[in-house]
């Protein structure tokens, strides 16, 4: 009994920390950047939107904070939260902690869509639309392949996802091959590596809703994902329509991932690693894990993007950073848990 009480005490501190973390990270990030703005000015600029403060800062400082940093900070948080929650849900759904949100080919599909959009010389809106549409197409394709008379089994689905992923990766190579090596190819390569550099409110306006909707669905289903993570028969015997529930989770996660890829390119490792961090902190119960992933994912990608934009004069492609940090961390997890993912 005493242990349970103690556990509860820790939980409250943890919950407070998880709620506070992204908020603190958001405000801290707004004061960071290549353009020098004093902490006082940054703070005044921020509060000026709530309190009537006589401006003591320049117009350009305000532009930097509200037009450059804020949309980018929001995008990083949105993408981080989205990828993490999609990753955690997929790991539950596939009963496999090594699964990432791209397992069904959505990233490859979206990457191809974007590359195609760049190839035909479309404006940003077309590139993003293509990315989103092909991301969804890839997963629908995987579903079609995996469908048998018996419904679609997880194993078939994963295999189909691998096939679709390989197919779209080949198509990306094809686009790169025919792309103009001087003008289009570098853009495609840079885009595929992922970057938040182009973040604007316009992007958020259309990219945020699918991420919000998908995440809300997953958050509402979060306890059911526990049941879904049992064997199919067990879940069914607990009165759950497994096929149906799986598809809701897949559609919601795909919507999120496709939207994230279309906003800021392929950002790897987040959806794979953050759920593990979450499990270390709050345990495997998806009811708690999913909200925790929102908090940790948002804060983590924000932190990484801060490095990408503020560490050097040159932008560092974000997927390079997430991999450089993610891979060693994964090794640490492996060694710590002995591969048991406890």
């Amino acid at each position, binding site marked *: 009994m005493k242990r349970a009480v103690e556990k509860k005490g820790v939980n409250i501190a943890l919950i407070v920390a998880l709620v506070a973390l992204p908020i603190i990270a958001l405000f801290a990030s707004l004061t960071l*950047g*290549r*353009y*020098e703005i004093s902490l006082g000015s940054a703070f005044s600029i921020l509060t000026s939107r709530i309190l009537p403060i006589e401006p003591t800062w320049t*117009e*350009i400082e305000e*532009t*930097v904070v509200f*037009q*450059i*940093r804020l949309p980018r900070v929001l995008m990083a948080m949105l993408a981080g939260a989205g990828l993490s929650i999609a990753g955690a849900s997929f790991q539950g759904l596939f009963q496999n902690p090594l699964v990432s949100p791209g397992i069904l080919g959505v990233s490859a599909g979206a990457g191809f869509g974007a590359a195609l959009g760049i190839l035909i010389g479309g*404006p*940003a809106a077309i590139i993003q639309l293509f990315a989103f549409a092909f991301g969804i197409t890839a997963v629908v394709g995987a579903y079609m392949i995996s469908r048998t008379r018996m419904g679609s089994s997880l194993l078939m689905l994963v295999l189909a996802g691998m096939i679709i992923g390989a197919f779209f990766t080949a198509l990306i190579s094809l686009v*790169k*091959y025919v792309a*103009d*090596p*001087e*003008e289009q190819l*570098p*853009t495609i390569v*840079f885009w595929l590596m992922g*970057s938040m*550099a*182009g*973040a*604007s409110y*316009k*992007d958020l306006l259309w990219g945020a809703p699918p991420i919000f909707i998908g995440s809300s669905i997953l958050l509402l289903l979060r306890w059911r994902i526990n049941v879904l993570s049992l064997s199919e028969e067990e879940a069914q015997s607990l009165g759950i329509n497994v096929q149906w529930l799986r598809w809701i989770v897949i559609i919601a996660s795909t919507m999120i991932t496709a939207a994230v890829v279309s906003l800021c390119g392929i950002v790897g490792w987040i959806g794979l690693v953050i759920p593990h961090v979450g499990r270390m902190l709050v345990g495997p119960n998806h009811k708690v894990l999913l909200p925790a992933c929102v908090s940790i994912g948002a804060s983590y990608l924000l932190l990484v993007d801060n490095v990408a*934009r503020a560490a*050097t*004069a*040159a*932008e560092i*492609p974000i997927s390079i950073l997430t991999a450089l940090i993610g891979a060693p961390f994964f090794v640490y997890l492996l060694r710590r848990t002995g591969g048991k993912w406890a």
Partner: protein
Amino acid sequence: MKKKGLLVLLASLLAISLLAIGCPPPAPAPEPTAEETHIVIDMRGRAVELPRDINRAVTLLIPQPSIAHALGISGERIVGMHPTSMRAVKRGLLWKIAPEMTLADTGFVAEGWTVSIEELLKLRPDVVFQWCHWIEEAERIEAMGIPVIVISGGWTPGPEGTHRDLEEWVRITGEVFGKRERAAEIIARQREILERIGERTAKILDEDRPRVYFMFTDSLQTAGGDTHMQFWIEGAGGINVATEISGYTHVGMEQILAWNPEVIFISNRTDIMPEDILQNRIEGQDWRHVDAVINGRVYKIPHGVFHWSPPNLERVLLVKWAMQKNFPEVFADFDMRQIVREFYREFFEHELTDEEVRTILHYDNN
């Protein structure tokens, strides 16, 4: 039925391959005598044995067609060029002044700077030009018995290095095609022009030098201090704001605001025009508070035989042109139209029309 079809297919394949084997091998070329070949040292210091008469050259170096033309090498002698070169040929002046260049093959390039050996063999090249850092690719071609000359496209660090690279490039190209005197003449003339410019820029005080941002692509990609762009930006009396970074790298909008460039030059890699930046029309980028935009000092780099900004002969013009943009009062005496006319007459033996001058200078946009 299916099986039968397969058999037929196999049989016909076999027949074709037998036919191919049955063809008499091409008559062996007579062993070149000492008279017919000579040794050229390429930019990795390799001694390459070449036939004296080069009639079928293949080049992977993007600006090579324009350099070849300046050296008075007929376009017919270039049988293969990189697709990007071809685009520059067709976009710029060369298709007009050397239309035979457009007949060159481009299909031998597999991807980037790698070649499809069989396609290359079909072109029966006497020599292939390849970049220095693609040495493995060069050796692969050499294994087929085709001599390869490797060239550094201005990557030797420092403005001096890039300058020397280009001179070497021109000199070696002249040597390969038997145009040694013309090459020497071009090198000497360009050096002379640059020295004269140098004398004038040397007088500019450091505090007067404008901060220059070079827009390489529209996704905020610029050129760092170790690139060829440093050569002409400094040569024209400007300060490259991105000197501290390396290579052709992406930067953030906030970084540009922090640098706050006074002059912006836009490369021909992108379709962005000064108007797009002045009107702040690029999505996700906010240029309003940049000095160059406030003062309307955003310019599109000209494009003649080739883009002016990558390493090639027209860089001399670029330095002059950029100088005038950097210091409009000091170099008010530069009549760019006249300078351009004289330059193309001297180096490309082409008399520009007024219309061509306007197009080269992006006159309507600058």
